[in-house]
């Protein structure tokens, strides 16, 4: 018991960082997917780049919000 308590305390301390890191990982994957698809779309139809830029920025912003939820609301 006495040896387990500090380990548990450490685990609790770590968990916040893991949760923040996982949130950022998910957001990064989402932003990457949006960026990849946006680049692909511009490659297919270069004349639509303006509209794709707006949609891409919106998609990235919505995906990115997840990271901030994880960072600020968690722990």
């Amino acid at each position, binding site marked *: 018991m006495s040896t387990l308590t500090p380990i548990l305390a450490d685990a609790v301390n770590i968990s916040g960082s893991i949760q923040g890191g996982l949130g950022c990982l998910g957001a990064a994957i989402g932003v990457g997917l949006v960026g990849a698809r946006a680049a692909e779309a511009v490659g297919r139809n270069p004349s639509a780049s303006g509209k794709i830029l*707006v949609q891409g*920025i919106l998609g990235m912003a919505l995906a990115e919000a997840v*990271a901030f939820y994880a960072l600020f609301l968690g722990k």
Partner: protein
Amino acid sequence: MSFVKTFVSFVVKPISHIPPHPPPAASARRPPPAIFEIERPGFPAFSRGSYMRLFFRKTAAIFAAATVLSAAGIADAAAAEAHGVTPDPSVLTRIGGVFPVTNSMLMSWLVAGLIVLFVRLALGRPRLAPTRIQAAVEDLLIGLRDVLAPIVGKRVIPHAFPLLASFFIYILLMNWSGVLLGLFGEFLPFLRPATADLNTTLALAVVSFGGWLYFVLRYAGLRVLARETFGNKADRREVAAPLYAFLTVLFLAVGVIEVVSILIRPVSLSFRLYGNVFGGENLIHELGRLAPLGVPAAASFLEILIGLIQALVFTLLSAVYIGLVCNHGDEHETAHAPDKPAGETTPAPTPA
């Protein structure tokens, strides 16, 4: 988006590599778009690019100087404080002993005052024959309008545009104020980049939410809002009656989730802006602590881009939220336009 393109091309290319702007051919000239609803019959058209180029050449020169000099300023700052940037602003004074005045509030007042002063002194009254500065500002506004109009919809954009354009310009300058402050380092501890404070961004998000509520209720109405949120979007003619009833219940349940997602919008708007600007500010300072000379300048350039993108994101999302409800009428009009044949549309031929 010409404004963004001009700016981005400016940041990416060195100044000396930009070829001189060729004078537009007579046929290529077009009359200036009437953003202030002023027709300029017979007035010689101005070339759009040249004024913007001038405007941004100066702006970019200022920011280049700021980012390079920021290295020196941050070196001082690094010696002064071992820890990173504090997440909270510091209270400078309390008016009447109660109402706190923080350093980020001071910065936001400064930025707002500068915008008012700029408009008052440099622009004055909009003239039929635009001065150089007026042409540049008009170009910025036209670029913004061209981006926002298809999102918000033709009907609401004249009413919503002042709010959205103010969001963009105000937030942009507040974001960039952090990079400019790098110039002074620790010499100005009473100023803090305004959007690197959750209170500022939360206030902006609440204003955005209030604006959304106003525009939606004023130009779409409570009925449209309720139908958009809770209403059954299935077509009664295509769906069997029991399934339709089931879908009504389902859409009602979805509407509850929708309400939660609407209510969480101010939180996500404010967290996004605060997280990006505060994170960038921390990055600059931490890099300044690790490698005081030169390296923070790279982060500052990144921060200029992020400040621009985040200002655009805040404005775009505010516009999208308004457009989600208000732009629906236009869509129906175009869908039932007489010149468009109803029924299935032929898919575009795909290249082999």
